[in-house]
């Protein structure tokens, strides 16, 4: 009698597990109404807004993956597939192109950005007057938060600025390399780094950091975001690309600190 009951529970348990497994299987992509977008970390907030607006007007959902541009390029290289790729630098877009991972014809510039120096908002004293920027390394103690120059565009731009102003030796050993632009900002927000070199767009919408200097556009390579379509052409993609060119989209970009004069 007891073996009958336990046999019954075993059956029920197995059935339950099987049902759970089936439910856990990945559902087939609803092909028409979803676009996968791989985008640089520094555009995550603005892309969310764009996605919301885009869905409202077209009903198409954007599924997004954010990381540093270099990381994304390596993911594509590793076999990941996306419908649209947004890179924060020309370098990583060219890399993806060289490996034939994107549609070359579709590469076009999206928006610009600038590099700024930021401090935690609790630091209310520091002010950098235009002539004082040369003394930058001596204006703070502790670490300097930058993206990892090896694979994060904002880090590479920061590195260029550091070289241009000859701060390399003074700042040697003081870096806190972050894995993407989000992280670089986060370190300053958390007070772990006293100073950070981040995008204007990120600093602009953060309440926890204060901009102390906006670097001139010539201080480094021009910071331009590029977008390109993936290899699989989808109908919805054309809609998306034309949306990105629209007035509406441009306004969203500007409201988030991009294309700053």
């Amino acid at each position, binding site marked *: 009698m007891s073996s009958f009951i336990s046999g019954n529970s075993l059956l029920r348990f197995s059935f339950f597990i099987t049902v759970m497994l089936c439910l856990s299987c990945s559902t087939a992509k609803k092909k028409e109404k979803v676009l996968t977008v791989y985008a640089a970390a520094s555009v995550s907030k603005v892309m969310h807004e764009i996605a919301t607006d885009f869905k409202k007007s077209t009903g198409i959902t954007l599924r997004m993956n954010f990381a540093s541009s*270099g990381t994304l390029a390596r993911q594509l290289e590793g076999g990941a597939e996306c419908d649209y790729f947004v890179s924060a630098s020309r370098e990583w877009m060219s890399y993806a192109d060289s490996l034939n991972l994107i549609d070359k014809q579709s590469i076009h510039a999206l928006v610009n950005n600038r590099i700024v120096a930021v401090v935690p908002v609790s630091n209310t004293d520091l002010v950098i007057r235009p002539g004082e920027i040369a003394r930058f390394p001596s204006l703070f103690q502790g670490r300097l938060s930058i993206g990892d120059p090896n694979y994060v565009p904002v880090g590479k731009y920061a590195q260029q600025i550091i070289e241009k102003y000859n701060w390399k030796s003074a700042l040697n050993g003081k870096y806190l390399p972050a894995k993407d632009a989000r992280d670089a900002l986060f370190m300053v927000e958390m007070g772990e780094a006293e100073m950070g070199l981040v995008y204007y767009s990120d600093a602009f919408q953060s309440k926890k950091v204060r901009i102390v200097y906006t670097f001139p556009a010539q201080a480094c390579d021009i910071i331009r975001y590029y977008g390109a379509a993936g290899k699989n052409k989808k109908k919805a993609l054309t809609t998306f690309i034309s949306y990105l060119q629209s007035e509406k989209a441009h306004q969203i970009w500007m409201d988030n600190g991009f294309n700053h004069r």
Partner: protein
Amino acid sequence: MENFFSFTDAEFSAIGLSFRVALWCAVLILPLAVFLAWYLARKSFRGKPIIEGLINLPLVLPPVATGFILLLLFGAKGIIGSLLFDWFGIHIAFTFYAAVLASMVVSFPLAVRAIRLSIEMVDSNLESAAKTLGANTFQSFMRITLPLSLPGIISGFVLTFARSLGEFGATIIFAGNISGETQTIPLALFSQIQIPGQETAAFRLLLVAILFSFGAMVFSEFLVKKVHERR
């Protein structure tokens, strides 16, 4: 393949750092884990399940979450971190100490578990026999419980060491990826993977990581066997 074995300075530094972090982590954890394991094995008290749950928490939390909790506690603005800085001028987050602390927190439940199991297998009747012969609790522990639970303690030590070698999530959040200071082998591997053309370097590090962990396991088995042979 000719320059496969030419490790860069950064790689050597990562290897050395991994080893030092793992060693410090295991050494610092050991006394605390042994004490806690003994206490949990031998004593009962109110709130015991809660303590056990807290100790096991890092085991079930994603390491990234653990790292984040550490950051909240010990970061520059953290509850404890800010006090440490105000009173002693000490930074913990994003330093070598943070890497050690991150490893310690994630390995702690493993160590306690292994050691506790081992202590529980020691017949407590032997401990009470020792007491009738004049030993106090500490002496009974050092002369009876400890030698008899040595295999578990060794295994706890090695598990801690090996876990620390592989620790990534909590380390990268709490200690950051600073070459020469907190960039251990897993973090260096992670960085290398992001950079095109660094496959060889990544492979090198991967091999070292495997060798280290494998070596630690083999050594542990060897030690345990030695202990058993002595009996």
